[in-house]
């Protein structure tokens, strides 16, 4: 089985939020909510500054606290390690929201918890997630970590990178090339 991951080249990313807008239209995300977002991480003081721009979302963790803590089993792991929420089984108790180190989940106005699905409906068709496919800077890559020839595997081998909050021990699968 595949182990899907996303690799984002922060050198190329300009933080334009096309990923955010594309996700909204592709998935008809509820008004007032986004499943992905942009962070401008600024370090230093004027004029010695550095900035890392990141497109962030659910990390589809291998050791996902949201899945472990879900009392109804609504948060679950689907094909390729994609973490999904089964809406019918979700009671909106928010335990998963509290457990997520990435603040990636929100309560949909209709009562269930919603978040990034890695566009599983597209992935099943062999397509990239919408955010990856629209990015004008081509800074985003999607693929299988278990396949050494996949673009994501190659990029992670070739370039320095980091994930967010690795210390949380959740084994996140969004990597940022630096």
């Amino acid at each position, binding site marked *: 089985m595949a182990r899907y991951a996303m690799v984002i*080249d922060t*050198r*190329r*990313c*300009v*933080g*334009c*939020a*096309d990923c*955010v*807008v*594309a996700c*909204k*239209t*592709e*998935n*008809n995300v*509820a*008004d*007032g909510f*986004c499943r992905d977002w942009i962070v401008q991480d*600024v370090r*230093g*003081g*004027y*004029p010695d*500054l*550095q*900035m890392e*721009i990141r497109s962030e979302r659910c990390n589809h963790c291998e050791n996902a606290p949201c899945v472990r803590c879900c009392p109804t089993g609504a948060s679950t792991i689907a094909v390729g390690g994609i973490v*999904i929420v*089964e*809406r*019918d089984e979700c009671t909106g108790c928010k335990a998963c929201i509290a457990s997520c180190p990435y603040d990636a989940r929100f309560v949909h106005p*209709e009562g269930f918890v919603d978040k990034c*699905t890695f566009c*599983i*409906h*597209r992935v*099943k*068709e062999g*397509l990239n997630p*919408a955010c990856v*496919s*629209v*990015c*004008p*800077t*081509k*800074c985003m890559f999607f693929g299988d970590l278990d396949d050494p020839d996949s673009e994501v595997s190659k990029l992670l081998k070739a370039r320095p990178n980091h994930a967010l909050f690795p210390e949380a021990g959740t084994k996140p699968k969004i990597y940022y090339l630096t």
Partner: protein
Amino acid sequence: MAKSLSRREFIKIGGLGLGGLALGGGLMNSCANMLMEEQAVQLGLTGAANGSLALSPTVCEICFWKCAGWVHTIDGQPWKITGNEHDPSCNGRLCPRGTGGLGAYLDADRLRTPLIRTGVRGKQTFREATWDEALDFIAIKMKKIAEEHGPECVALFTHGSGGSYFKHLLRAYGSNNIAAPSYAQCRGPREEAYMLTFGEGVYSPERTDIRNSKCLVLIGSHLGENMHNTQVQEFADMVGNGGTVITVDPRYSVAASKSKYWLPIRPATDLALMLAWIHVIIEEQLFDQEYVKNNTYGFDELRQSVKKYTPEWAYPITTIKPHIIRETAREMGWQKPATLVHPGRHVTWYGDDTQRVRAGAILNALLGSWGRRGGFYYPNKAAVPKYKYPAYPAAKRSWRDAFPGKYPLANLALASGICDATLPSPERDCSFKGWLVYGTNLLMTLPQPKKTIAAMQNLDLLVAIDLMPAEITGWADVVLPECSYLERYDDLRVSPGRVPTVALRAPAFKTKYNSRPGWWIARELGLKMGLEKYFPWETLEDYLETRLKGAGLSLAELKEKGVVELPQRQPLYFEDGVQPEFDTPSGKIELYSDVLASYGFDPVPQYTAHEEPPDGYYRLLYGRAPTHTFGRTTNNPILTETMAENEVWINTKVAELNGIRNGEYIILANQDGAKTNKIKAKVTERIRHDCVYVVHGFGHQDKRLRKAFLRGADDAQLITKVKIDPIMGGTGMRVNFVTFEKVVQAV
């Protein structure tokens, strides 16, 4: 349609449709998606229904880059817009504004039906009218103005695709007074500076070969925040390939964060830095000697003229250290001719803008980047014959007559100038009596909004044609609602470029409300004014078919493909052994300009100091955000979700000094006492201490824009002062200084 669907209901229908998904017209390509199966399954929606997915070709209208794309619909309902893979303007990837373009169609605050004003101008009292009534009103007034004052007393302000029909209408009526704020309030100085230097403009989309550039110099250009699509795509490629970026900006922009060198220059001193660079490049012989010898005119005069502009001279002016000026000049020299000093786009800053941009053009000439790989390429023109109309009547007067002897090198009409010439003056025999305003909110696009209001009060007729209500539509006598770009055919996008193309915008949806396409409005108005010989076509499809036939194409082909490549006729770069020709008086690249000298302007750019902000005031800088196009998108229901209001960037120490907390709402007040709506403070290390920065286009004051109304502040209200470029009439707008005031809470 009996009932419009909520977004939620729409998902359900889409999900249901999976069973019997019918694909539209063989148009499906690899980007087409199966719809939200997971959601459908999770919602327990199974079984077959008649969902059908269709794609129709469009050309984006959210900005002027005009990327071609596909509108995806399910059962005729909107789903998403994606880029056309065969379009070199987007390479299959739209920017966030284009991706969110559906918001223009969906916006519930759109103008819905023609309106005729019932009260005094400025008081927003209108009555709904039929198209017939509204167009009759305009036709009668326009005829009257033509009889009493001459048709030249009607002017058109235009921005956007549909403007072409109104230009045609106005010319047929007998006036050539057609202005776009994109000239005198934006890129006019750039076009004139490059025209003077190379005999050609930079044009739009820019002919910059960023993707092949090894060293890119950005002077106030904030690519990445400014989402001109392929420029940003190429910028990312160039950065990804390890190219050197040198960014000159008082603000640590996104581009600055990608740069090897960030030069946080003192605002308004860019020309000093550029002259010092020219000095170093000449004195250290970093220039392309053979290119300069073969292709340029006036090198010795230039050399003589910049002798005094040493990096040490520039240091106290710009605050950029001499060794950094030298290092960056050498970097530019080492990478030549693949060094691109970007010409910028919005360049009306300080009133000497043509000269400042010309200094950049001269740098490009010295580095040999014009006509060379990694510099500026020669775009291939797209040859699609124009529709043949009878000759227009000769206009007896033009906008130039309003300014005898002024702005001699302006090649296009000045929007600000037409505004000035609407105010009665004893020096003029004719002031403007009528304005048609298409797709441009003059109260935000022109500086000095109070002057614009005073000018409008002198009009006999003010017509606004627009998609959305805005400040300008509130002042109009007649408001005509145009439908969005997703509901109409428009003229072909005929684009020059590395590969010339022709692209089609076809309607994806039926016209909403009682709105109409621009072509229909202009034609009906023409018919009512007896100008039927200028509108021989009945529908735009007839017109398009005729034009396409002239290029050996058909509407059917364009509907299927969206974009068609046209033959390339000339090489992109100069060829070895061929002496290039330049359309300048000397036939060479003019480092020294006899034309400028003949009008009494500096033939080689010279530095003049600009006024500095007084104590307690900060220079107002403004720019763009990636998800918005000026004020046009700040009510877009999709795009406002990424950015609903602007912030004012204030240096941390300045904020401390003024007792301003990050996130606090404050009011900006300028040197003339003009004040803005409240705006959130962004306290940041990313900007110098002597300026503040806001994104333009926010702070709408028209309450009919429910998402944009009083969200953030409008910088145009603070631009009460301008410095006019004497060469071409551009309005330098970065000459205003602001201070901070606390928001007084209503008791």
